[in-house]
């Protein structure tokens, strides 16, 4: 789902770039609340893992492939804003080094995959968790379902951008149907990979899963409410 240069016109690409920069600034601010001593290195690992798994295109119907976007996966493991930074970093490196995703389209891609898919997908995850029993397996299940939905959300974001600034006259209705159709299938793969990955971390180190931190026994917090001073490492 990496948009190349040229699909979307310059004004819409630039506007998306501005929105992406603004949201990234918010993410940096919010991430400092999510990142504790343990989650910072985990976030590095999550970014690297998303890079690797994004290379693993799996076949879906009719000569088409899909790959993990990773927004919900990252959000559930390290927090939505930290996760969005992970995805944005992956996209930046892919665009600059691997010629994947146009540089003028970087804002569009960050917007779609890091924020619509990641932060938006995390909101879906929260909503799903809200109606499920508060157990660890349900956190894993909710992450898988939300991940699948997040891919469709990101594909709709692309459609809106194409509708606003597509450079070729095509039938918008068929583009919408085709985008949502194929990304529903890709979403199934996204859901399975997210389910398996979050499930694996939950099995080994449940304390590292941000999206399930409410299930852990309460941490010892100082009366002032300050969590472990990070510099104490």
């Amino acid at each position: 789902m990496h948009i190349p240069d040229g699909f979307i016109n310059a004004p819409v690409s630039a506007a998306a770039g501005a929105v992406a920069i603004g949201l990234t600034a918010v993410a940096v601010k919010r991430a400092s609340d999510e990142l504790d001593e343990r989650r910072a290195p985990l976030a590095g690992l999550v970014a690297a893992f998303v890079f690797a798994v994004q290379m693993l295109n799996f076949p879906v119907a009719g000569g088409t492939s899909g790959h993990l976007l990773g927004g919900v996966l990252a959000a559930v493991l390290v927090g939505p804003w930290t996760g969005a930074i992970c995805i944005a970093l992956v996209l930046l490196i892919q665009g600059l080094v691997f010629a994947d995703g146009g540089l003028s389209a970087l804002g569009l891609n960050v917007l779609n995959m890091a924020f619509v898919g990641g932060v938006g997908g995390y909101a879906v995850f929260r909503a799903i968790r809200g109606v499920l029993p508060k157990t660890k397996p349900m956190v894993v299940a909710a992450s898988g379902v939300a991940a699948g939905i997040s891919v469709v959300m990101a594909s709709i974001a692309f459609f809106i951008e194409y509708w606003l600034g597509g450079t070729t006259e095509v039938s918008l209705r068929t583009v919408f149907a085709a985008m949502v159709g194929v990304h529903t299938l890709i979403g199934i793969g996204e859901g399975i990979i997210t389910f398996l990955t979050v499930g694996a971390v939950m099995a080994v180190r449940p304390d590292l899963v941000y999206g399930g931190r409410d299930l852990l026994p309460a941490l010892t917090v100082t009366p002032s409410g300050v969590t472990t001073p990070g510099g104490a490492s």
Partner: protein
Amino acid sequence: MSTTAPTRDRKNLALFLIGGLLVTLGLAFFVSPLASSSPDGLEKVSIDQGFAGSADDHTVGDGPLADYGVEGVEDEGLSTGLSGIIGVVITFGAAMIVFGLIRVQAERTRRAGGSSTAA
């Protein structure tokens, strides 16, 4: 009761990170050459709907690692796998720096009494 020995915890975390990195490197090197080379969802839609032609050549399309291959490595699988390893290392390194800086900055703000330092 919950006084987890911090050193033990840190050791476990280090093991987890090393294990996770090994899995990640393994996926990048051994599995990426097996990935489907069919166009991805967006690419396929752009071909079917007739707007694939509007894509411009990539700015760094001639770069040494363009399209997940290492320039000069003949064996296609090896080329893909090596580019995966390089990408994982770059991404991990960049992310550790970025998140380290965010933590340092947050710590500084916290020490300065919460909100003041706008630098």
